[in-house]
């Protein structure tokens, strides 16, 4: 049981930047082994894990922030370009959300938010394809972007049918949610293959920005689930998006740790 718990914690350490993991994974694991041993002597397991989770995510966020600020310092032009692009993406999502909320008087996360997010993702994807054309892995990236785009068509048609009082098979929209996930996964792999993450944005930029986005998406999915509204197609669709971001995050996290200056020599 203890080995399982340490394995779980080792897996959770993936949320840290690779350079941090390379330096501190072993001593942190040793510290957790000590804490778990102490837990066996009477501390509450739930309380301990709560403490570990809170510490993990708070400190990982700080470490990504530090890597990001270092990147901005070393490569300011590239960093500001990437931040501008990602800021535009988030701005588009926020504008869509605001427009939807104002127009429909609805809660967070109505369809326009997801449309805007979808269009923004597709736009960024095509921008990525343009940047890496004729490079190794660009075919994978293009396939991902095309699949993501095509997979959105049933969803958009479904939402359009709902808003105009017509009918459209909900299952087609549900199935497309999984295709979107696959498409975004391909985009992630393509980006990794073409080594373009560093061109579009550093891993830390993405992780820092994905934190709040993932929270918003997760929260929206939870609200829909608890509220019981549009529980099937809508929830799966939003769940698909949520998982898409996770897939993207994992594609980034699974990159090799960058070499230190000494190793490069």
């Amino acid at each position: 049981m203890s080995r399982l718990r340490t394995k779980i914690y080792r897996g959770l350490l993936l949320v840290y930047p690779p350079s941090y993991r390379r330096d501190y994974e072993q001593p942190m694991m040793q510290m957790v082994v000590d804490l778990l041993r102490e837990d066996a002597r009477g501390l509450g397991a739930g309380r301990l894990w709560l403490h570990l989770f809170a510490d993990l995510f708070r400190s990982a966020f700080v470490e990504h922030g530090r890597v990001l600020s270092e990147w901005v310092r070393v490569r300011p032009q590239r960093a500001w370009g990437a931040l501008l692009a990602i800021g535009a993406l988030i701005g588009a999502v926020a504008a869509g959300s605001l427009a939807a909320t104002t127009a429909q008087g609805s809660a967070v996360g109505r369809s326009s938010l997801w449309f805007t997010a979808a269009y923004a993702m597709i736009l960024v994807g095509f921008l990525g394809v343009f940047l890496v054309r004729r490079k190794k892995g660009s075919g994978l990236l293009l396939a991902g972007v095309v699949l993501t785009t095509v997979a959105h068509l049933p969803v958009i048609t479904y939402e359009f049918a709902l808003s105009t009082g017509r009918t459209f098979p909900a299952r087609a929209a549900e199935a497309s949610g999984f295709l979107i996930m696959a498409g975004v996964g391909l985009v992630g792999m393509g980006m990794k293959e073409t080594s373009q993450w560093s061109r579009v944005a550093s891993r830390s930029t993405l992780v820092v920005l994905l934190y709040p986005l993932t929270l918003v998406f997760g929260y929206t999915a939870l609200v829909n689930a608890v509220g019981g509204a549009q529980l099937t197609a809508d929830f799966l669709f939003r769940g698909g998006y949520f998982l898409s971001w996770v897939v993207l995050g994992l594609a980034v996290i699974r990159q090799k740790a960058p070499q230190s200056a000494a190793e490069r020599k």
Partner: protein
Amino acid sequence: MDLPLPASQFHVLLALADGEKHGYAVMREVEEMTDGEVTMGPGTVYGTIRRLLELGLIEETDERPDPELDDSRRRYYRATSSGLVVLTAETERLARLVKTAGIKRSNRFKPRIEGI
């Protein structure tokens, strides 16, 4: 080195002031020093240690208190001489602040509290 030190850095530096310790011992020492009011997890401890190493206020040491009982995966750290200088300066700054707060409390806080 600019003062004030962030609270986590001050706590870790203070824990390492009297000799080398590993991360878990630092965490326990901070808890004891603050009567359990400050609890640090592995991420906070090693994030702070990393920052203090970068600033040159602490250093990693190969010395082991008891190699027979110790685990080789542990890493030990101790305060450097510049770390001790910064710690002294920060402690004096805090002492002055507490003294000022004490004077202000006796002069102004008390009547206000009594007047409520």
